C-alpha cells in the first residue's frame, strides 16, 4: 500500500480507525462470550456487521464503533455480539455421531431412568431438533421414552430462531433427509416449520458457557460441538470443568469432529466403547488418565 506524506490522507485515516473499530468489536465479543476473533477471521467482521449498520443508518464500521463506545447502548452491543457469533450449523451435522448418541442413550435406558441431554451452543436449533427427531421416531416405533433435551446458546437471536423452529429452503435442505422433512416439518410460505410436537421435545434457554454456572440438574450427555474452537485455553479448561460438574459420573461429552479434550482438561477422557466421544472421569481416575495420556 502506498504511503501518503500526510497523516490526514483519507485512506490512512480509514485504515487506522478501522483497526480501532475492529479491536473494539473483538474486545466486546471476547468479554461477553470468550470467543476470539483471530486475525484470519477479522475480515468477516465487516460482512457480519453490514446488516446492522444498514438497519441503524450507519455507513462505516467506525461509525458503528463510535455508537457503541459513546452510547454504551446495551441493545446495540447485544446486536453486535449476536452478529459476530458464528452460527454455522446444519441438521444431522457429522451424521455418524448421532448413531453413537442413540447407542449411548439406549445403554443408559437399559440401566436407569429418563436420560437428560444438554445441547450447549445450539445455534439456530438444527442440532437439538435433529436429536428430537431421532428420539421421537424411536418413541413412535417402539415406545422408547423421550429423553429431556435442553438447548442453550449465548445468542438471543439464535435462541429465538431455535424456539421458532422455522427454516429457509436452503437451511432445511442441509443434512435433513427428505422423509424426515416430510414427517416433521410443515410448509409455511417459502419456509419450513418444525411441528409443535417436535418443538415441545426440547427446552430452550439462554446460557453463556464462558460466564454462567453449569445448568442445574444432572445430565447424561452434553453436546458442545463447534463452539469451543475460538475460546482461549484457560476459558476452555473452565468450560470443561463446568461440563464435568453438570454430568453424572460416566456422563458423555460430544465435541465437534475437529475438537478434543486432550491436553485441555483432566475431567474427561476418550470413551472406550463409543469412539470419538468423551467420558467424565471420576476424581480417583483422573491421575491415572493423565499419566496414561
Amino acid at each position, binding site marked *: 500500500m502506498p504511503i501518503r506524506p500526510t497523516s490526514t490522507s483519507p485512506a490512512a485515516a480509514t485504515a487506522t480507525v478501522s483497526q480501532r473499530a475492529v479491536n473494539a468489536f473483538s474486545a466486546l465479543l471476547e468479554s461477553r462470550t470468550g470467543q476470539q476473533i483471530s486475525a484470519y477471521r477479522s475480515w468477516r467482521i465487516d460482512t457480519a456487521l453490514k446488516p446492522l449498520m444498514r438497519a441503524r443508518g450507519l455507513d462505516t464500521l467506525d461509525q458503528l464503533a463510535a455508537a457503541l463506545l459513546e452510547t454504551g447502548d446495551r441493545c446495540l452491543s447485544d446486536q453486535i455480539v449476536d452478529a459476530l457469533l458464528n452460527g454455522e450449523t*446444519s441438521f444431522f451435522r457429522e451424521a455418524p455421531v448421532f448413531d453413537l448418541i442413540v447407542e449411548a442413550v439406549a445403554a443408559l435406558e437399559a440401566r436407569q431412568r429418563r436420560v437428560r441431554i444438554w445441547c450447549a451452543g445450539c445455534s439456530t436449533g438444527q442440532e437439538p431438533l435433529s436429536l428430537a427427531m431421532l428420539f421421537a421416531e424411536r418413541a413412535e416405533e417402539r415406545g422408547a421414552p423421550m429423553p429431556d433435551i435442553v438447548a442453550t446458546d449465548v445468542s438471543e437471536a439464535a435462541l429465538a430462531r431455535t424456539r421458532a423452529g422455522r427454516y429457509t*429452503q436452503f437451511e432445511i*435442505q442441509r*443434512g435433513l433427509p*427428505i422423509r424426515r422433512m*416430510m414427517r416433521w416439518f410443515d410448509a409455511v410460505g417459502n419456509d419450513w416449520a418444525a411441528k409443535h410436537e417436535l418443538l415441545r421435545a426440547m427446552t430452550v434457554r439462554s446460557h453463556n458457557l464462558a460466564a454462567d454456572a453449569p445448568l442445574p440438574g444432572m445430565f447424561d450427555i452434553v453436546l458442545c460441538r463447534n463452539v469451543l474452537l475460538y475460546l482461549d485455553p484457560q476459558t476452555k479448561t473452565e468450560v470443561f470443568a463446568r461440563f464435568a460438574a453438570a454430568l453424572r459420573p460416566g456422563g458423555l461429552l460430544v465435541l465437534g469432529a475437529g475438537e478434543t479434550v486432550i491436553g485441555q482438561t483432566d475431567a474427561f477422557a476418550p470413551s472406550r466403547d463409543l469412539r470419538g466421544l468423551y467420558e467424565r472421569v471420576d476424581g480417583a481416575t483422573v491421575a491415572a488418565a493423565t499419566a496414561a495420556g
Partner: protein
Amino acid sequence: MKTCLVVDDSKVIRKVARHILETLDFSVTEACDGREALDACMAAAPDVILLDWNMPVMSGMDFLRALRDSNIPTRPKVVFCTTENGMAYIRAAIEAGADEYVMKPFDRDTLESKLQIVGMA
C-alpha cells in the same frame, strides 16, 4: 469415480449441476428429457440420477416409473431436483420411488448434502 446423470431440459441447470458435481468428483453425463435419460440408463446405468420434474417428451415422473418397470440390473439412486416445491409433489415423488428430493434453487451445499444422504458423496 461415481457417475451421475443430470436430467434437465434447461442447459443452464445442467451446466451448473455438472460444475458442482465435478467438484464433488463425479463423472457427469447429461440428458434433456426422460426419454434420453432412459436410453442412457439402458446403455450404462449411472450411480445416481439428478432428475427434473417438468420436461418435454417424457417427464421426470414418467421416467421414474419407466425406470422402475425396466430390467436395468442395478438401480441408480434417484434424486429429484425441481421447482415443484410443494409437499404434495414431494410425497408423490417419494412414493414413486425417488430416494431424495432437492428443491430448486439449490447450491453446492444442498447438492453435496443430499448426495451424502443417499450415500453417494
